[in-house]
């Protein structure tokens, strides 16, 4: 008998929600959900053509094309071999080199794939001691920067193009001049060779100023560490040893500063099934939801400026329990403010930390003021963390001047020639320095940079910088491992590396190859060619880490940092965040990152000022304009074909607020963010740039004008005015909304231990009889069965997989206007749910890609068999068959299929007309210039089709890698039975990029494979199991480890509602008795469903 599945009714207030519009059940939201396509999605806009006109025109042109068959002739094409064979190069085959990407406090060790001499993709180097083989979104996207057609391509002097020789001559002259008034402003690079050249330079020119500036640097933390422990130390937390971690405004899971090795010890300890190590517990205190906060077992919302006070109150409790004298001294010196926190939260958290002394760790964000850093170090000391969970290494680093020191020197007029390597101080230097004006006072500014940006425009010399994939270099990772940076390609344009400039300044010849790096390496690790070759082969020098150094806390110095500091001002604060898309602004021209939704707000192409619901209400900021403007607009302008062009009537539009601090004012679009601390506003840095390139134009809001050098993390005492202006946002959130179904599942450790299979019987899955199918499906006969698992327990939602997928699979970028029409093309999307109280919910990220259903609903509706199944269980897309009906996307329960509306791959995204209206709203009319930049073509993966207009596309499970592995095995087998050779090991692109090892891909048919074991594990469940589509992707439920003494502990791990054993089974005993095969639509009341929980297996299947 046919089984009818009605989706479970929506509870009055959903427990799990994706936006306020959904939570509040606003009519506008319902309408958007009910509407099959968002308004405008099916309209060929911008051209004034209706669909009917379009078809008429196309018919006519087809007829015309048919008259002359000349168009059918294939053009002549050529095979052009090398004149001289290139060593190792085999046409069409990938070559892999070990290299590294320098990041702020270390490096990301890499394996770079190059094909025919072009680097196309980077992966983590799993051999490296400070890498688990993962990467992050920034690293993945850095390949695109290499081919960025907007890069500075010529040397300019005074705005006019000059030759490289002219610049070399200038350097030679400067080198001879004696270095009077020479100064450098550099980015942090951790390069031993640069340090060596710097020392040579300083020996030659003793008066020179060497200043380092990173907008998102760790200057405050370094200040505290050097005061408390002495100069030249670096702190290394050992997450693998910590049972309890308390993160104070710290995004320690972020890999962008220290690399993937930093927190990699944390994730195995998060696994409830790990043998021999109890699951750790994470407390997070922060003002906005960070990735780390999303993982927290207990999270406290706290203004960033109150973190110090929180630490002080926590220290008091800890001191009372553990009686550390140095801590008591520190507490005495720390400033007191009137901030109040949940007393029980602080007490119980402190008790838990003290109870786990020696196995507990407190970690604080590096931009928090130095006195907070010192206080936290004292807490760690009292907890016995120093030397156990928090160790130190001796780096021997020579301190550099700060940008403030440099600014003082410029003001004093002592700087004559200023070299700026990278960075962009005219844009991102602390506002109180007025750096852009200071630059005008320096007679000669030499800027080595990637773009003709704000700083370059104020410089006498603009020199194009070489990308890290174009130049020789070396770097120490955060643990100190000596790591090589090898060029993969000659500079595409005439890029120069900073090592080359420094070498010329010390009077050496311009280096032509690796000689500078080789010199550094030989001095430290011997001159044998084997050692050098091994360095280049594996990418690093083994056992070259910094030596561990015992740390001794100088309590007096710690107290000294706190004395005389004013307590944080009450009232509103503005918090400066690292952007998940553009970092500090350095990736502003990277379209992949710009289009990657922020992990929390899901906003693309913009940054927004996040405000808590309560504060928004108080200030009069609307949740979003959706609720009322949409209604009004719909009354005035009912939905009809005439007004669909007026997208703003229903799309997500936010209020513009003015943020005022002192005499400085900035404007920003406000967005109400669940889980945000009250009286606090968070705004990401790096946006709001003008006059650099079309891609950055009109994108987001610049927060730097309010940022001062004494407080890099926050600015207190700001005032907010809500303006009447509004701002359209491109959010990927409300699109593709799923009704309150238990897609994301979680539970507590207790529940998991008592009922290990709980996740498989949540929601609908607790009611339904075993799935049966009406259809007979062809046997999936192959010895391989590709499958994947996503571990929600360790997934932070960091977006690395999204960008890796984009790089691997030639996924195009569509631009802000198209994202607003829900036409984004990303093959993986990172869903983000909120669960619970809107003021203080849980944040649950969930990566969703094509689930490769064995009973795929998309396949049955394709009229041309363009999407079919392979024997090894892949849901295939034959692009050349697809005629673009989009039926498959409509029938896909996961909404992961993407339709290419406008030949996005052929659109010159970097080459858009600059204008206030059309920035990012790329005009896709028939007269648009087509064809992507030549350099962008070089990035494309040659093993993946670059899809054209009118074709549906989606995740392929990286079929090119599967085929590569299968073919490799067959080639190796040759004239033997192929089963004698095992299939070559490989990973999907997303799995390979994942820094927390949350994605596992492999052959499910092999019972020893990791994916087979995880598929069969207790925590695994399939989304929408009751549809019986048998997806090949399974999710591992998130397990939380709450401390039951904490306030709100009863709400932790309850995203799916309470587990209510027994009662549930009883209530539905009658319907279940005869339910098998009977219509089983809605046996349970809506009230029961709001808190829909687990039923024990035996209850579910009676």
């Amino acid at each position, binding site marked *: 008998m046919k089984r009818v599945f009605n989706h479970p009714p929506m509870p009055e207030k959903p427990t799990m929600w994706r936006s306020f519009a959904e939570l509040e059940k606003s009519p506008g939201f319902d309408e958007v959900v009910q509407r099959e396509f968002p308004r405008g999605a099916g309209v060929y806009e911008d051209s004034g053509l209706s669909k009917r006109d379009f078809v008429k025109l196309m018919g006519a042109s087809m007829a015309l094309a048919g008259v002359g068959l000349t168009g059918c002739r294939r053009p002549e*094409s050529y095979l052009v071999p090398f004149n001289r064979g290139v060593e190792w190069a085999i046409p069409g085959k990938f070559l892999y080199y070990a290299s590294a990407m320098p990041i702020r406090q270390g490096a990301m060790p890499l394996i770079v794939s190059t094909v025919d001499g072009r680097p196309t993709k980077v992966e983590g180097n799993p051999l490296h001691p400070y890498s688990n083989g993962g990467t992050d979104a920034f690293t993945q996207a850095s390949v695109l920067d290499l081919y960025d057609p907007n890069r500075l391509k010529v040397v300019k002097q005074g705005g006019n193009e000059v030759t490289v020789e002219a610049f070399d001559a200038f350097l030679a002259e400067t080198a001879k001049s004696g270095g009077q008034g020479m100064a450098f402003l550099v980015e942090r690079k951790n390069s031993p060779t640069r340090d060596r050249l710097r020392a040579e330079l300083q020996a030659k020119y003793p008066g020179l100023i060497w200043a380092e500036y990173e907008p998102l640097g760790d200057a405050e933390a370094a200040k505290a560490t050097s005061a408390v422990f002495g100069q030249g130390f670096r702190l290394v937390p050992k997450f693998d040893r910590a049972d309890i971690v308390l993160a104070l405004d710290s995004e320690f899971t972020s890999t962008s500063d220290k690399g993937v090795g930093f927190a990699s010890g944390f994730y195995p300890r998060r696994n409830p099934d790990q043998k021999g190590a109890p699951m750790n517990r994470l407390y997070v205190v922060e003002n906005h939801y960070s990735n780390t906060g999303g993982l927290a077992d207990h999270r406290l919302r706290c203004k960033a400026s109150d973190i110090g006070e929180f630490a002080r109150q926590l220290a008091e409790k800890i001191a009372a329990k553990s009686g550390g004298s140095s801590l008591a001294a520190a507490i005495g010196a720390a400033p007191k403010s009137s901030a109040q926190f949940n007393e029980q939260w602080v007490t119980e958290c402190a008790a838990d930390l003290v109870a786990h002394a020696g196995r507990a760790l407190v970690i604080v964000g590096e931009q928090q003021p130095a006195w907070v850093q010192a206080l936290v170090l004292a807490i760690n000391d009292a907890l016995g963390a120093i030397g156990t969970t928090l160790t130190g290494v001796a780096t021997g680093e020579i301190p550099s001047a700060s940008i403030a020191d440099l600014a003082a020197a410029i003001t004093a007029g002592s700087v004559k020639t200023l070299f700026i390597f990278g960075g962009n101080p005219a844009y991102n230097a602390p506002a109180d320095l007025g750096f852009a004006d200071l630059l005008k006072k320096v007679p000669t500014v030499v800027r080595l940079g990637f773009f003709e940006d704000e700083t370059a425009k104020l410089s006498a010399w603009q020199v194009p910088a070489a990308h890290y994939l174009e130049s020789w270099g070396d770097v120490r990772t955060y643990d100190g491992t000596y790591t090589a940076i090898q060029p993969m390609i000659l500079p595409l344009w005439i890029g120069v590396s900073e090592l080359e400039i420094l070498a010329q300044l010390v009077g050496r010849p311009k280096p032509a190859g690796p000689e500078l790096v080789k010199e550094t390496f030989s001095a430290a690790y011997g001159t044998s060619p084997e050692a050098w070759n091994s360095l280049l082969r594996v990418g690093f020098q083994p056992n070259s880490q910094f030596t561990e150094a015992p740390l001794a806390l100088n309590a007096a110095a710690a107290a000294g940092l706190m004395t005389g500091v004013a307590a944080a001002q009450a009232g509103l604060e503005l918090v400066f965040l690292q952007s998940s898309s553009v970092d500090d602004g350095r990736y502003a021209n990277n379209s992949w990152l710009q289009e990657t939704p922020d992990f929390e707000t899901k906003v693309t192409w913009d940054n927004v000022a996040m405000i808590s619901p309560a504060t928004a209400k108080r200030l009069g900021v609307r949740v979003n304009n959706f609720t009322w403007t949409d209604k009004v607009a719909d009354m005035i302008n009912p939905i009809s074909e005439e007004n669909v062009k007026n997208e703003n009537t229903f799309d997500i539009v936010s209020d513009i607020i003015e943020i005022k601090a002192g005499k400085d004012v900035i404007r920003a679009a406000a967005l109400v963010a669940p889980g945000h601390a009250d009286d606090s506003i968070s705004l990401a840095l790096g946006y709001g740039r003008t006059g650099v390139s079309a891609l950055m134009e009109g994108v987001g809001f610049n927060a730097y004008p309010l940022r001062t050098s004494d407080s890099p993390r926050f600015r207190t005492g700001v005032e907010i005015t809500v303006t009447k202006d509004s701002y359209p946002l491109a959010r990927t959130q409300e699109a593709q909304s799923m009704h309150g179904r238990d897609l994301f599942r979680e539970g507590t450790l207790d529940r998991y231990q008592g009922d290990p299979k709980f996740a498989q019987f949540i929601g609908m899955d607790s009611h339904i009889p075993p799935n049966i199918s009406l259809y007979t499906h062809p046997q999936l006969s192959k010895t391989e069965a590709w499958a994947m698992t996503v571990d929600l327990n360790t997934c932070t939602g960091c977006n690395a997989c999204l960008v890796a997928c984009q790089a691997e699979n030639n996924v195009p970028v569509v631009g802000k206007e198209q994202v607003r029409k829900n036409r984004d093309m990303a093959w993986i999307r990172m869903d983000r749910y909120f669960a619970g109280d809107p003021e203080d919910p849980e944040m649950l990220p969930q990566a969703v890609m094509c689930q490769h259903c064995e009973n795929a609903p998309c396949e049955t509706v394709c009229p041309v068999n363009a999407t079919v199944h392979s024997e090894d269980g892949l849901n295939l897309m034959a692009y050349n068959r697809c005629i673009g009906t989009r039926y498959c996307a409509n029938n896909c329960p996961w909404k992961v299929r993407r339709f290419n509306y406008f030949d996005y791959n052929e659109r010159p995204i970097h080459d858009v007309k600059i204008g206030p209206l059309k920035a990012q709203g790329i005009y896709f009319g028939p007269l648009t210039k087509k064809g992507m930049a030549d350099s962008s073509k070089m990035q494309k993966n040659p093993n993946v089709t670059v899809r054209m207009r009118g074709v549906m596309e989606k995740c392929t499970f990286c079929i090119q890698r*599967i085929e590569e592995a299968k073919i490799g095995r067959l*080639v190796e087998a040759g004239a033997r039975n192929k089963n004698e050779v095992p299939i070559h090991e490989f990973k999907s692109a997303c799995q390979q990029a994942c820094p927390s090892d949350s994605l596992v891909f492999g052959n499910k048919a092999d019972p020893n494979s990791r994916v087979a074991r995880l598929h069969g594990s207790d925590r695994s469940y399939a989304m929408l199991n009751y549809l019986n589509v048998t997806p090949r992707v399974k999710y591992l439920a998130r397990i939380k480890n709450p401390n039951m003494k904490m306030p709100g502990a009863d709400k932790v791990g309850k995203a799916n509602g309470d587990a209510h054993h027994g009662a549930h089974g009883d209530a539905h005993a009658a319907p279940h008795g005869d339910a098998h095969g009977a219509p089983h639509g809605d046996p349970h009341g809506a009230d029961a469903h709001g808190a829909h929980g687990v039923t024990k297996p035996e209850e579910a299947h009676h």
Partner: protein
Amino acid sequence: MANFFPKWTNQLPWKVAVCVLVLGGAVTAGLTYYFTPKYTRVGYEPTQPVPFQHDLHVQQLGMDCRFCHSFVEVASHSNVPSVQTCMSCHTQVKAESPKLEAVRAAWNGGKGDGPAVNWVRIHKLPDYTYFNHAVHVNRGVSCYSCHGDVNNMKVVYQHQPQSMSWCLDCHRAPENHLRPPSEIYNLNWKAASPHDQREMGLKFKEEWDVNPPVTCGGCHR
């Protein structure tokens, strides 16, 4: 009784006839073009920048395919030889031949910085089709099966249609083309009879577990 049909209908029969003829002719012409080997360019024999003779090099000089197409066993592409490969012999043999002008220009006396030789592509699969040479030649499919008797060609031309149905013919019944591994590059080799070929092919198919893909994903990614 009034006329049911207006006057212009008198002209209709011949108009219809003309239309049918024209349409029929167009359909026939279309079918002739698209459904015959001409569309798949069998016999396509462009003039190459260098009049290289495969028959001379293979039949008379006895060179192996892999001397020039050196990566066919390891890569998806079967490479066209670099100029360096040509010049490894032709600096001594026929060093002054006017036919080798383009090659010598590219070589530029050993510097290798001359204008590259643009060989005209004969066998071209669509961009969305991923063919891999290595897997075929290592698993018993000879060059001959797709490229014909290149060893006897003075000028190379396309020998097989290389259409999708042609590919599938072999993928569905590889026994008709599998050879002993020793004879892959021997383009003169032939099984004694079609029956022998089938027998042997089935034996190899069984022994090596040859199971070519016939799903889309085998070639389209």
